[in-house]
């Protein structure tokens, strides 16, 4: 693929696993199934590479422009590859009041990355998320699906070390 600054230029090998292909074939005949297909695709790759969106367009007959219209409308869909351990800091109201904003700054500073960046070793990326619904445990952060509640900034380095050790 040629040089491009749109952020989607990165060459990705998107061979659709069998399960994904059969999911798409099963769902494409149903009305309004695009979002379900995109969920399944993101589950496979961790994000939705452009090449995958192109392939979905071919398989379903939905124009690529419409697919991108949907991908970019919803927060859940990502067009860039996240770190192996996705760090999600909750910025729901309860978490915000109890210092969620400081946590996200601190997490990025400890890992030395900016928004939408991945650490050099590819292990971490940090994103803010809307309410994970554990308001009683505020402030909350999840790492690769594991939840850490009533969190303080000081606990962050130790938590990240745990995931670094796992590689």
């Amino acid at each position, binding site marked *: 693929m040629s040089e491009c600054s749109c952020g989607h230029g990165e060459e990705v090998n998107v061979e659709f696993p069998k399960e994904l292909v059969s999911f798409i074939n099963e769902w494409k005949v149903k009305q309004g*199934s695009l979002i379900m297909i995109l*969920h399944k695709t993101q589950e496979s790759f961790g994000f939705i590479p452009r090449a995958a969106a192109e392939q979905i367009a071919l398989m379903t007959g939905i124009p690529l422009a419409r697919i991108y219209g949907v991908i970019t*409308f*919803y927060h859940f869909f990502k067009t860039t590859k996240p770190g192996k351990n996705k760090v999600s800091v909750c910025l729901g*109201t309860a978490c915000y009041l109890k210092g969620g904003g400081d946590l996200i700054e601190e997490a990025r500073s400890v890992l030395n990355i900016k928004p939408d960046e991945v650490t050099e070793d590819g292990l971490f990326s940090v994103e803010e998320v*809307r309410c994970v619904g*554990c*308001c009683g445990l505020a402030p909350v952060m999840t790492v690769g699906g*594991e939840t850490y509640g009533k969190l303080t900034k000081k606990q962050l380095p130790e938590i990240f070390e745990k995931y670094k050790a796992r590689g």
Partner: protein
Amino acid sequence: MSKLNTDALNKLRDGASGEFRNKKGYTHYILTCGGTACQSNKGVEIYEGLIAEAKKQGVGDKVQVIKTGCFGFCERGPIVKVLPDNSFYVDVKPEDAEEIISSQVKGGKEVDRLFYKNPDGSPVQKAAAHGDLPPIGFYQKQQRVVLRNCGIINPEVIEEYIANQGYIALQKSLFEWKPDDIINELKTSGLRGRGGAGFPTWMKWDATKKVANDIKYVVCNADEGDPGAYMDRSTIEGDPHSVIEAMTICGRAIGASQGFVYIRAEYPLAVHRLELALAQAKDYGLLGNDILGSGFNFDIEIRLGAGAFVCGEETALLRSLEGGRGMPTPKPPFPAVAGLWGKPTCINNVETLANIPAILVRGGAWFASMGTEKSKGTKVFALTGKINNSGLVEVPMGTTLREIIFEIGGGIKNGKKFKGVQTGGPSGGILTEKVLDTPIDYESLTQMGSMMGSGGMIVMDEDDCVVDVARFYMDFCVDESCGKCSPCRIGTTQILKILEKITHGNGDEADLIKLETIGKAMQKASLCALGGTAANPTLSTIRNFREEYMEHIHDHKCRAGKCKSLLSFTILEDKCKGCGMCAKNCPAACITGEKKKPYTIDQSKCVKCGECFKNCKFDAVVRA
């Protein structure tokens, strides 16, 4: 499982009723909270630990360990309840599993140290029966209708739901009542939509029923994008069948044969339990073709949302269900006339639906006996923020904010002063001390400048800055506006810019007038409720906390210390003992000094994180 007819369902219920679990020859049943919050707080280890300990101590065949839905008392989770003793244990840790098994199951002695203790230290007596709420301050004024089965049954086992009056309402709806009877019962109950606006539920059903069309749809709104609200998630996690049963009844009442649950993808546990419940209901013939041999067909599919707050708005939700961008469309036509794919569609929120089986079993009059004149029944609130007992709270409509915050919620954390309470999330407003004694219902909250919304209730104390909170909500709305109509797209952005200016200390008094003008224009001219209510937090804080806006504008001061641009930290020479704790904890390395001599802060490098302020033991660091 084979498909049931109505007699077989009755038999199953009778066989299972009462002490259903005792049929299996167990002596003890241990219920562990299986809600998202408790599960992520080592709840899974506790559940697995109890099973492993029971086996290890040789009583594996006497104890059944069950994961239930949310007990509501999230602050003191994970919660574990042991039957038949009714022992209600709080703050349980995985290492407590051994003692629960050895002491209680084998020795017949409860584990006293795990009981909840009143603030004065006295232990709490237990509830008389399983199903009764424990006599803890947190539960005193609560009444559980929506959450009636949460913490009581295992949501992954359909028989437990059936044993607790499950699917009786469906049987009545199929065999005893005509569609109009169902709708009339809802009319008697006075149930109004719990998604926020409070539209009478029976009217919605009736309107959809009256439109003639071969194809109609029932949609359950389980999107819950409101930050600080999780009652819908907890309801589905703890009692998915109540939602399925209600949707099926709705299908019968309005003449639909297909339902959809539109649910947040961010709620994996709720999605999983709903999938399980749907499969079990289908196996028993409670969903699908010829339900219970009645000839009525109805099926339900799950569709995932993808993280857009605006999709909580019903027309936007339908566009998303159709597979497109979730942008609202003008009403009329209302979904009842032209909804999903142009067909008549009845959309109800999770909490609204969960009420319905209980109403139809116990009668509309029973439901109408709870609540206020115009708002009947109960309301579930997610009580969070700077509160001692945060959790899920269900109270009769008409309970006052003071009762919820100070009696159920146990007051403000760390003895701080109450500042305000935000109800209705980004669509609501911050209410003050002055209105705490107003009985709350749809109308009173709107009158006070807030709204019921989905039921988030976030308590703020003196350390929270209302201008910053207004900015936080507007930042959210800018992000979540779909951009279709200009009052919302442009209005939210402009309000955010002005609020940022004020929090940076660059505002002037004319800005307040601008905020009010833009806010009122948005209320009148926006296409949907997101735009129409987005200015509420800003307008309500200007009205209720005007003096704090003035302090930001004129004195460049943030009394709560939240607006960083307005802050500075200095060390008082005469109070500093030179211990160096401030310098040690400073992440910007901008504090210097020699031991036993006063330290100083380099203001040009200070990042205003407040670590020095927090760590000084001699009150030598001051925040201004």
